[in-house]
């Protein structure tokens, strides 16, 4: 990992939201969806806001500090899953005070959980993912 690098969501097939501090990510191309630990949600939000991972090292997190190794492993998982990719042209952002505060009070280690049991539903159910011009379900290729 280029530790001072900046990352961005890798494609428009990656959709995400945060509800009450819990991030959820859905890959429309694979049908896989992802949840995070509390610290993982914070770091995900930071990374997609173009905060460089390097600037998170040493940040207060759950009574300890984020280590370079933990961040390295976490970012590697995100890129392996195809959720993030390098954004060499992007400008770095600073961690927001809100995210810094949430990170400091997080209780769980950095983690992302992948789920694939709804892949068929995500990929073909027209009620929840309609190709608008066609108005009919389209299986992602």
């Amino acid at each position: 990992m280029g530790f001072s690098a900046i990352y961005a969501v890798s494609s428009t097939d990656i959709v995400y939201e945060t509800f009450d501090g819990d991030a959820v990510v859905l890959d429309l191309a694979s049908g896989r969806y992802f949840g995070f630990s509390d610290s993982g949600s914070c770091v995900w939000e930071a990374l997609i806001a173009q905060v460089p991972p390097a600037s998170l090292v040493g940040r207060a997190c759950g009574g300890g500090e984020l280590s370079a190794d933990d961040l390295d492993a976490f970012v590697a998982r995100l890129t392996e899953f195809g959720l993030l990719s390098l954004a060499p042209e992007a400008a770095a952002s600073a961690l927001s005070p809100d995210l810094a505060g949430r990170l400091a009070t997080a209780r769980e280690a950095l983690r992302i959980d992948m789920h694939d049991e709804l892949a068929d539903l995500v990929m073909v159910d027209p009620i929840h993912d309609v190709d608008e011009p066609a108005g009919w379900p389209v299986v992602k290729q």
Partner: protein
Amino acid sequence: MKLGVVLPVYNRETYVGSALRSVLRQREAADLDVIVIDDGSTDGTAEAVRSFIAGGAPIRMFSQANAGVTKARNAGLRQLANDTEFVTFIDSDDISPPGRFAADLAYFKADPALELTYSYMRMVDQIDDETLEPVAGCDDRIFRGVHLSAGIYRRSLVERIGEFDEDLAQAEDTDFLFRIFEQRARHVFPETIALYYRRHEYNLTRNVAESRREFLKAMQKSMRRRKADPTLGDLRGFVQVTHPSGEGAPLRP
């Protein structure tokens, strides 16, 4: 056996009569109790429903200020009769195919512990509102996806699962079904076509951005529940993209 059929409706005077006729033609299958929740319609919906009631149909209609489909479904559940044993739903623009109730209620007769039948839906872009059948040659798909009308639910299961989550403006049906399968409800997946899902210009779920956000919220709620209670089941298996008969176009580009 009494089957409560919950039908929330908002400004669907064009379609609600067809939906009701499709249910009422199945009166021989069960003691039907059709519960219509008029969610503040401003068109001729209420009059259309009243015309069926005036004709002696087993329909009870309740009107409320517009509150959205989630609250309307809950209002319907709260009106279930004391002696209702089974519950299902139909949306105001959909059609219940002939024989649909009889086919799936038979599974409950065969297995007194059964809590749920969950069947297929046929999505079509044209329905003949005289025959209540898809128009020959119309575009259609048959699959088992997420639709409340695909299920018949034993009353005790509905009570165990609880009401629709009013935090969800959409995907309340998804969340409800997720909770059922997380709870490992005893179920069967019949080959019945449980509904004709009518695609039309005004489908609620064609607002893709909002429906996707609400779907993500339902997923997040499910993950949170399963994280808090690892004994809950996962959601594998209840979606099926083709019907065993091979009818209907496969879900492919």
